[in-house]
């Protein structure tokens, strides 16, 4: 009789501890979701996260940290120089406005006798201060400028997620773009004398993917 009572007490305690543990874990998970972002720029703090479960649990801390890493690449001259605020590309490690009054044009490929590929060859031209190259050298088109220049991490993350600003890309298309696009890749193959990006493309893609997979949260600033 005494033995049965002891077992019953033990089982009751086990259930209580288990319930406590579940409650504690749930609290932690809920606390990470308080400022979730679901891809809609307006009133982002009020909406719950959506469709984040396929690649693991949403996690605002990991997501935001990953974007801040990717931001180092996105705002580097090798990427940002072709995502200017105006209609003129930028040049060099100091991101000065492209000499020779080069302009975007409707399709992002320049104007008249001043088209990008008139000077930018399919490959880098060897030598200092020579034009870097890619077969598809261009800016974003005039109706989808995809501006990076001057944006904070939070603002840039919003641009990345807004289909009206990102070339109508969903998460999958964004990852495909940063992973495989040849012109994006040319950022990792700078012309002679130009600064290199601070991490490999694989590392960048990993951070970018983590940002999206963990909930695509907006950085705080």
């Amino acid at each position: 009789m005494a033995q049965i009572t002891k077992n019953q007490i033990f089982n009751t305690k086990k259930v209580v501890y288990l319930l406590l543990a579940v409650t504690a874990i749930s609290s932690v998970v809920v606390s990470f979701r308080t400022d979730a972002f679901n891809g809609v720029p307006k009133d982002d703090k009020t909406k719950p996260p959506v469709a984040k479960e396929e690649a693991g649990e949403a996690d605002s801390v990991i997501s935001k940290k990953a974007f801040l890493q990717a931001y180092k690449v996105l705002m580097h001259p090798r990427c940002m120089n072709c995502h200017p605020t105006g209609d003129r590309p930028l040049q060099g490690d100091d991101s000065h406005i492209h000499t020779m009054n080069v302009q975007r044009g409707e399709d992002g490929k320049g104007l008249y006798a001043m088209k990008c590929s008139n000077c930018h060859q399919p490959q880098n031209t060897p030598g200092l201060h020579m034009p870097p190259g890619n077969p598809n050298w261009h800016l974003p088109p005039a109706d989808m400028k995809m501006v990076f220049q001057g944006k904070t991490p939070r603002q840039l993350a919003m641009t990345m997620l807004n289909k009206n600003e990102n070339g109508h890309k969903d998460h999958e298309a964004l990852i495909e773009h940063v992973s495989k696009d040849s012109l994006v890749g040319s950022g990792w193959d700078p012309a002679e004398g130009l600064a290199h990006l601070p991490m490999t493309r694989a590392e960048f893609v990993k951070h970018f993917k983590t940002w999206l997979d963990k909930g695509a949260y907006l950085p705080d600033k």
Partner: protein
Amino acid sequence: MVKLKINQKEYSVDASPDMPLLWAIRDVVGLTGTKFGCGMAQCGACTVHLDGEAVRSCVTLVSRAVGKEIVTIEGLSANPDNYLQKAWIELDVPQCGYCQSGQIMSAAVLLKENPDPTDEDIDSAMSGNICRCGTYPRIRKAIHLAAKMQREGGSGK
């Protein structure tokens, strides 16, 4: 040997695929109207047309030009509708003349795409062609005149 089509004529050129097109045009084929300026796509003196686009031949490799239509200033002059050259002569545009073939090749692309350019359009199209003598005001005037000739099919007067 590399086959190049320059000004509607086929040439077998003894050039390596990574030779700048400018060298093949000037030194191998012997068409010296196209000039060497900076050698780094900064001045526009070497501008020729590659499938209708105003490429800088000093940085364009022979390999890129294979199978494409190359037109030099000599090819443009052969055209009876060479309104640009006529306007250039009419207004005495050149001073030393060194940059002028490149200027005209760039202007030709502008007039093909925009038959009635404004001053702003001309600046947008021509800013990659530098003139050490500073003939820019006459270049602009001549482009307006050539555009008028092109539209009216005459002398523009």
